Structures are given as structure tokens and as C-alpha cells.
């Protein structure tokens, strides 16, 4: 093919790309966070207040905690906001962030079918409930996706002294996010561990209900971290830090506390002053 023709085609291709992205030069940061905070609607409540005050746009990428941390590790997010303390501390220890700051907590609830084959309804101890599920071989749906909720679930199984693996027919790893896993549990009438916020906003409940709640072990701490600009020089340090400072300020903390789903407070601010 002759050169002019190829040149023409490549010029047109470049033009096709350049039509997009003549976007406004507003300041923005990328926040990698979990599906629970995004899907519960917390960010829709929280971020407009921050954007109004600072004129910094926050672009949220909502994935599982494991992937959210990985996005930060690669330098593709400026701030990480997740809930898996062990993994977060490792993130800091590996030098990907200089500091982990606690922001708020919510809690996990054990969901299950209303006919409750494992007879755990009303229990206050998560580990006892899990033991009953395992001994009655009732269907249990696990996230199986290395998310914060999955990590918590595995901790509770360990605490209950039950060895779980996908080779057991009653224990099913879906490898999916909180919502899809709840959809599966709803379809199979199985037990599942969920964070309260996602459950409250989840609509396809079918025959499921909260059976066990209120165990202090079920508290679920969220931490926020600025990705280390020393590792990734392009990190928007000033804007990212502004977000962290705001979310742990009394104004940010009050905004978190004022968010309610179906009349219930979903997240409880507990940043240390």
C-alpha cells in the first residue's frame, strides 16, 4: 500500500481519539474503594459535600478490597478507602502508603433463609452460628474474591474452628462482589455474610432476612490511605490529602453519621482526633 494512504488512515485514527477528552480542567482524584461504600449510596451522600467545599472532583472506582489495594499499588489511584485492616497494614508496611487512618466502621450481618434450617435465628455469636451452619451442612455462599468481607468471613470460620473449602458441597464460593453473591444466596436460599449497608440497599432479597447481628466481632473498620508519592510521583498528593483531611474532620465525620438507609444509620464515624 502506498505511504500516503497509510498516513491518511493513521491521521484519521488519531483524530478519532482526540475528539474525546477535551474535558474541563477541574481538579480531580481517583479514589479506589469497595463496592459496599459505593453501592450503599454513601459516596453519593458524602462526595458532593466535599466537592462543593474544595472543588475537587472525586472519581470512585468501586471494586473488592483486594483489587482496590492492587489499583493503589500500581499507582492507578491517588487514595485507597477500604476495609481489611490486615491487608491495609501490609500495604503500609510494603511502602505503598505512609499512613493508614481509621475513618468509620459499619458491621457485618449474617443473612439466611427465613425457614432457617441451621436454627441460628436471633443468635448473638457469629462463631456459634457458623458452627451450626457447618454441622447441619446448610448451603453457605462465600464471596471467594479476596474482598474485605471475604477476609472477615474466613476469620470467623477460623475462629469457629471450622475448616471450609470449596470441596464441601454445602460451601459455595461465588468469586463475585457483594451484590452478585447476595443474588446467588437469594436464588439458592443460602446463608451469607454481608455488610449491613449493602444488605439495606439490596432489593432482590427473596426469602432472605438478617438472622445474626450485634456480635462485637462483626464490626468492620474502614481505613483511608494516601498512595505514597515516593513510589508513584504522579500521585496527586495535595488533593488526595485534602480529601483525607476532610473525611476525618468533624464536618466529614458528621456527614458520614448523617447518612441513613431506610431510616438506619449505616456507617459510624470513629476517626481519632
Amino acid at each position, binding site marked *: 500500500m502506498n505511504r500516503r494512504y497509510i498516513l491518511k488512515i493513521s491521521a484519521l*485514527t488519531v483524530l478519532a481519539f482526540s475528539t474525546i*477528552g477535551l474535558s474541563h480542567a477541574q481538579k480531580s482524584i481517583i479514589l479506589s474503594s469497595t463496592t459496599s461504600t459505593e453501592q450503599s449510596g454513601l459516596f453519593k451522600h458524602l462526595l458532593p459535600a466535599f466537592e462543593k467545599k474544595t472543588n475537587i472532583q472525586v472519581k470512585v472506582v468501586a471494586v473488592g478490597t483486594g483489587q482496590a489495594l492492587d489499583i493503589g499499588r500500581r499507582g492507578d489511584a491517588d487514595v485507597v478507602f477500604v476495609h481489611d485492616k490486615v491487608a491495609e497494614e501490609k500495604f503500609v508496611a510494603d511502602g505503598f502508603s505512609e499512613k493508614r487512618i481509621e475513618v468509620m466502621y459499619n458491621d457485618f450481618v449474617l443473612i439466611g433463609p427465613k425457614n432457617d434450617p441451621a436454627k441460628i435465628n436471633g443468635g448473638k455469636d457469629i462463631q456459634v452460628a457458623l458452627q451450626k451452619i457447618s454441622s447441619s451442612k446448610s448451603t453457605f455462599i462465600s464471596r471467594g474474591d479476596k474482598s474485605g468481607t471475604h477476609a472477615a468471613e474466613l476469620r470467623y470460620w477460623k475462629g469457629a474452628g471450622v475448616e471450609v473449602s470449596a470441596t464441601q458441597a454445602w460451601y459455595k464460593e461465588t468469586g463475585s462482589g457483594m451484590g452478585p453473591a447476595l443474588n446467588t444466596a437469594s436464588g439458592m436460599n443460602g446463608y451469607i455474610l454481608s455488610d449491613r449497608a449493602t444488605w439495606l440497599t439490596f432489593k432482590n432479597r427473596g426469602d432472605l432476612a438478617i438472622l445474626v447481628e450485634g456480635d462485637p466481632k462483626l464490626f468492620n473498620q474502614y481505613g483511608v490511605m494516601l498512595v505514597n508519592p515516593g513510589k508513584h510521583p504522579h500521585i496527586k498528593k495535595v488533593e488526595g490529602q485534602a480529601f483525607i483531611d476532610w473525611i476525618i474532620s468533624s464536618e466529614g465525620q458528621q456527614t458520614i453519621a448523617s447518612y441513613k438507609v431506610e431510616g438506619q444509620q449505616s456507617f459510624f464515624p470513629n476517626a481519632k482526633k
Partner: protein
Amino acid sequence: MLSAFNDAFSLLETLDANLLGIVLLSLQVSLTALLVGCLLGMPLGAFIAIQNFPGRQGLIVVLNSLMGVPTVIVGVVIYLLLSRSGPLGDLNWLFTPKGMILAQSVLTTPLIAALTRQIIEDGWRIHGETMSALRLPIVAKLKWLVWDCRFSLSIALLAGFARAISEVGAVMIVGGNIDRVTRTMTTAIALETSKGDLALALALGLVLLGVVLLANLMTSIIKSFAERRYG
């Protein structure tokens, strides 16, 4: 199921400017990916159709296989390329519409090239001898063939558009499904499904179907008009 459809229709009436933005972004991304796919795929396909070179059969097999490459794989590969820790990180295209266009272009280009190759090759079988006798330069031959097969080639166009607008795997990973920035119709449907809001997911699905239908209708009208006029 029926009640879900009912809910879906009543929801459509309440859908707002945000939805319009989602639809427009989907169209913007997928149509640009289609354009890139045509600009690269059609000349490539036409070239392979009429030119003999070593490894041609192998290239055809590769092109035909790429038609079926899973969108998620393309998503992961483009993600790794565009990531700040990847080779193209400095472009700063991750989690932007540009990155999504790039990913979808990788999907549309081989598809359009493979279909174009087959269509042009069939045209070449009919007109090849005449053109060879005329000793036209290759670019002239290609232009002539593409123009001659333009009505058949419209199917390659529609297939490319369908591949782009309906996929969710690549745009979800590369775009990140960011509200008002990279949320498309398909990622919005995936999001609402995972929130268990199946009615809203279905409503969005109907919008997507409507858009695809409209695109096909328009192509069909243009084609029949053109066939009557120039056919």
C-alpha cells in the same frame, strides 16, 4: 418476570439527565471504536483479501479467532498496558473514555478486518481477472473493490458496532465504571444487577436494545435508499 418488565417501563418514564449522559457516553465510545475499527480493519482486511504473501493463511486464522476473543481478556491486557506501572502509563488513559475507546477498538478492528477480508475476497473472485488485466495499482484496486462491495460491507459495520456497544468486560475494567465519567449502559446494567435492582437493570437493558435497534434501522434505511439510487 412480567412484573419486572412492567416496573422497567414505568421506570423509563422517570429516568433523567443522568441516563442521557450514560447513553451518550456509550454511543461516543462505541461509535469512535467503530470508526477506528473501520479505518484500521477495512484496509487491512481488503489488503489480505487480494494480496498473496507468506503467512497469509495463518494471519487469516488469527484474525478469525480474534473475532471471538473474550472482552474481559482485552480489558485486562489494556488495563495492564495503561496502568501507571505499565508501558503506556504516561498517557494517563486508564479510567478515562479514551482508554475505553482503545479497548473497544481492539475488539472491533479484527472483527471488521475478518469480515471485510471474506467479503472483498468474494468480490475479488468475480472482478479479479478484469482488474489484473487493467493493471491498476493496489490502492486503486482496493478502493474499487471496497466501493463495489459497500452494501455487503455494511454488515461488517453493524457487527463491529454490536460488538462494541454490547460488551461490558473491557469497559468495566479499563473504565472503572466511574459515575458520570466512565459509566456506560452495560456497566450501569451490571451495577444495578449487583445491587439486586433487577427492574432498573432491565429498564436500562431496554434502552440499550432501543439504541441498537435504532442504529440498525438507520443503516437499513440508508442502505435501501442508496441501493435504489446508486445500486
